[in-house]
């Protein structure tokens, strides 16, 4: 770590990390990629971090959405398995939970034993409030006891608050996009069913109701969705070779 290139300069300010997060452009990235970036940046930014991870609790089921390595994943999962531990308490209780020395930890003795065995004597779990209904937490694991000083604690709290905003915006974006796709699909589906009805009306010389009944019956018989049957009929008739029945 002598006079490093600017690109190699270690992140020292949460604002640098936030700028990094801001560089992730909605529409070209995913929530998973963003959470991974948050874990990576946390490890880079906060001194003492051996491994970092992001826990999300959706419908009361905790899971590790991103991690920088196996240590974090193992320790997260052992807490999920036990049903308690600092990372769960931080995510649900929205308060920081710290283990300064796992060998002397009394709040979660069984989890602390695992942490010692796996080689992490201290950890910091910071809440990452995503939105109503989804609890999140940023977990930082250190090898040594007392791995985090006041600076690190402060940095992790500031970084987590910025990260939460980025995650929240990403979530809004994704839910708007899902809704948009849902609407688009609904309009296309309706149109293709109507078009297929028109094809059947022409071919079978029937009315719209009878055409729909034909589609519904075909869907029942073949155990395929009505919209897929309709799509196949439209594709069949409009194929360029003019093969149609």
């Amino acid at each position, binding site marked *: 770590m002598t006079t490093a290139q600017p690109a190699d300069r270690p992140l020292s300010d949460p604002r640098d990390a936030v700028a990094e997060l801001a560089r992730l452009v909605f529409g070209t990235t995913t929530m998973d990629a963003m959470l991974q970036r948050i874990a990576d940046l946390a490890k880079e930014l906060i001194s003492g971090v051996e491994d970092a991870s992001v826990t999300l609790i959706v419908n009361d089921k905790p899971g590790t959405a991103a991690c920088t390595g196996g240590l974090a994943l193992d320790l997260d999962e052992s807490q999920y398995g036990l049903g308690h531990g600092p990372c769960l308490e931080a995510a649900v209780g929205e308060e920081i939970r710290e283990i300064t020395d796992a060998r002397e930890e009394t709040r979660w003795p069984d989890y602390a034993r695992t942490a010692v065995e796996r080689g992490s004597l201290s950890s910091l779990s910071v809440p990452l409030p995503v939105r109503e209904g989804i609890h999140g937490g940023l977990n930082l694991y250190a090898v040594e006891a007392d791995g985090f000083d006041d600076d690190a604690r402060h940095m992790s709290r500031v970084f987590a608050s910025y990260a939460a905003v980025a995650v929240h915006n990403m979530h809004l974006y994704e839910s708007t*996009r899902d809704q948009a796709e*849902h609407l*688009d699909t609904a309009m296309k589906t309706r149109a293709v069913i*109507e078009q297929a009805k028109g094809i059947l009306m*022409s071919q079978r010389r029937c009315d*719209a109701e009878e055409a729909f009944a034909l589609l519904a019956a075909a869907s029942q018989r073949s155990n395929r969705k009505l919209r897929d049957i309709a799509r196949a009929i439209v594709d069949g*008739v*409009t194929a360029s070779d003019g093969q149609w029945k």
Partner: protein
Amino acid sequence: MTQRGSQDAESPMTIAERFAVAVARSASDLPGVELLPERLARACAEVLPVDGAGISLFFASDRRLPLGASDDQAAVTERLQFTVGEGPCLTAHASGRPVVAQEAEIGSRWPAFYDELVTRTAVRDIISLPLVDETRGFGALDLYLVPPNDVRAVALSDALAVASEVVSVFSRAGRADRDREGPAWLDAPAAERRSLVWQAMGFVNAGLEISSDDALALLRAHAYSEGLQLDDLAVQVLSREIPLERLGFDRDQAS
């Protein structure tokens, strides 16, 4: 609570607030969920100094679905644009920008639409605003003006504020309907009527053995040359009032 009246007098409601009030008030006249777009269109026409408003969505590149209009004339104007396949609304959607068009401009930019517009409606100026959420443009809000009103009376900032309210009402309503096959307001009467055009497309696909694009183009051309609205022609084709041979004849002549 008692201070409210005096407070209102000092700070009048914003256009967005007036819009919300107008939408809420119309709920008793048009209670059905599928009538939400019509309520929104009426509220637009009520709070902005315009003579009519229409809301439509776009899908599959060139398909357009009218959802609601404030009145018959607004509904007719939308159908004319759809029939001729050009107009300020389509341009607003394609460009993603508001289009503010006075009569002379409509005449020069969209001549076919203009002919129909002046023949069949009293509308002369049109403002068309893209409906855009965080991810994409999905529709347009059209505002129609009848002389002596013209576009100069409409503050674009007000119109844009109303368009953004329309977007947020739709997105709230869309979230509520997540698990259905599309939001309830896709069953709007105007949309149901447009669905007959998709049906007629299929009818022409099969009857004349042509592609979907050609079928739509043929229906459009016939409607235009006969002075019919595409939605009305669709009904006549499907009821076999207009034999397919006659549409086919148009096609042969055109080529």
